[in-house]
């Protein structure tokens, strides 16, 4: 389990995360939602040790994040940021193979190859595994990066805006894969997501952040309420129930 206790972070005197505490449930999808500048990505980066926190505690399996060995933590928790520009010429398979680095330190074993092939199959990339990344479309590239994270085979998978710049079809495809990761493989997935309807349809829990604090957290039913969303986004958002999902109609 990941426990966040009283965590703060400031940049140049401005608090972007202010005394945040929350628990992330195992084997579920948790989505961070909130307006721009709410601190969603910052919080996620701290949970994955990409940036350090100023104060507070982040416990992963009851051990403070700073006390973990980096190489061990990489087998426990993985993160994918939203922009993934890579300077070198890699094939899809090369990229996915990097996901095994925490286990093999670059010398791939039979076991590693098994995981790599599985991850490629899971993301439906087998037909293009020998293509170079710069020959792929945005959606295919994103799938390749997610395949790398799957090959890393960590219990916790953190994704910062995985749907960024993707069309509807690819967005749905990726959310379905994440759902399968939790339901079939028992992974814990944490997302930063902008489209609250994707959060509503695919998450188990939602954490609503605003101005660096947690406004409210709970199940989809608890958060997808006009009253809660008004507080978070400062606008009136009617909620309609369509096909058993709560859909926010925020267009007018």
């Amino acid at each position, binding site marked *: 389990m990941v426990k966040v206790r009283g965590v703060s972070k400031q940049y140049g005197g401005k608090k972007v995360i202010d005394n945040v505490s929350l628990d992330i449930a195992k084997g579920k999808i948790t989505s961070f939602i909130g307006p721009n500048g709410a601190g969603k990505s910052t919080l996620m980066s701290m949970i994955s040790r990409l940036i350090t926190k100023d104060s507070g505690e982040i416990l992963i399996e009851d051990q403070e994040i700073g006390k973990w060995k*980096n190489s061990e933590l990489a087998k426990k928790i993985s993160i994918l940021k939203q922009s993934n520009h*890579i300077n070198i010429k890699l094939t899809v398979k090369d990229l996915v193979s990097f996901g095994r680095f925490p286990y093999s330190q670059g010398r791939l074993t039979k076991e590693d190859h098994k995981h790599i092939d599985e991850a490629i199959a899971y993301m439906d990339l087998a037909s293009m595994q020998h293509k170079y990344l710069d020959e792929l479309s945005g959606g295919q590239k994103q799938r390749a990066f997610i395949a790398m994270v799957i090959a890393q085979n960590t219990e916790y998978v953190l994704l910062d805006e995985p749907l960024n710049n993707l069309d509807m079809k690819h967005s749905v495809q990726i959310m379905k894969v994440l759902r399968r990761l939790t339901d079939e493989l028992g992974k814990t997935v944490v997302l930063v997501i902008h489209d609250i309807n994707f959060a509503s349809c695919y998450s188990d829990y939602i954490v609503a952040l605003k101005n660096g604090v947690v406004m409210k957290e709970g199940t989809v039913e608890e958060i997808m309420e006009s009253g809660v969303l008004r507080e978070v986004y400062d606008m009136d958002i009617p909620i309609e129930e369509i096909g058993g999902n709560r859909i926010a109609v925020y267009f007018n």
Partner: protein
Amino acid sequence: MSNRAKIGILVGIAALLVIVFMTIDAGGQWDYILPRRGKKLFAILLTGTAIAFSTVVFQTITNNRILTPSIIGLDSLYMLIQTVIVFLIGGTSLTMMSKNLRFVMAVGLMVLFAILLYRMLFRREGRNIYHLLLIGLIFGTFFSSLSSFLQKLIDPNEFLVIQDKMFASFNNVNSDILLLATVGVLLSTLYFAKYAKYLDVLALGRDHAVNLGVSYEFVVKRMLIVVAVLISISTALVGPITFLGLLVANVAYQFLNTYRHKTLILGASLISFIALTGGQLIVERVFTFSTSLSVIINFIGGVYFIYLLLKENKSW
């Protein structure tokens, strides 16, 4: 063609050049010529490898293929050190001074500077690596302005001594220094070896490297120190020649078409050795020492650099 075959070709060319270099115009005086030329070749091998190796590592860390380690100002510092020595104690004393002492002093000061620079960078979190490059660039400009100021104050005859140092040359490499330099290069390579496996991952950028369990700051700092040591040694050995690194690293990337640093570093070192040996042959046999090796290297490198920039404009 596989990368193995390509490396094979490079080894072949290098071997051919070695044979030509050792035997051309020998005139039968083998026991005089062979050790002399052998020493020169060994200096070329040492410098070429050190520069190719450190440039590839530096470009991987900075995720940028048009930078060379000279950007942090080590070349200019070297020139400043030489100028200050001449300014303070005069050119004759410089040539009288023990070569070992001068070498150790130059290397020591350059490494010290690099470490101070890194300390400044890594003292606070969140400093971008480009911050280091920027500060290095400013220091570099400062050092070269200071040197040219001092150069204007000294006696023109003494200026000639400095001018001699401005261009890389393999023509009068001292064997004592060569021994010291070899030890230095070997030690830093050994120190580097245990971090070598991280290079491929570092090429993905900081976030991916941290995600894959690399202690980024720790590893990068150590690699940068190794880069500084290697550059300092090769500069103090033959003079400022880091531009060569840009040339050979990029030729290696294009020729080998792989991301694996083991192959890249090996390839870049071989290309570097070929370029230097070939260049030295041209200097000795075609221009009969009327020009210096670094002029040729900088000319070819400059043309290639412009080509790179134009190409970068389109796509990578």
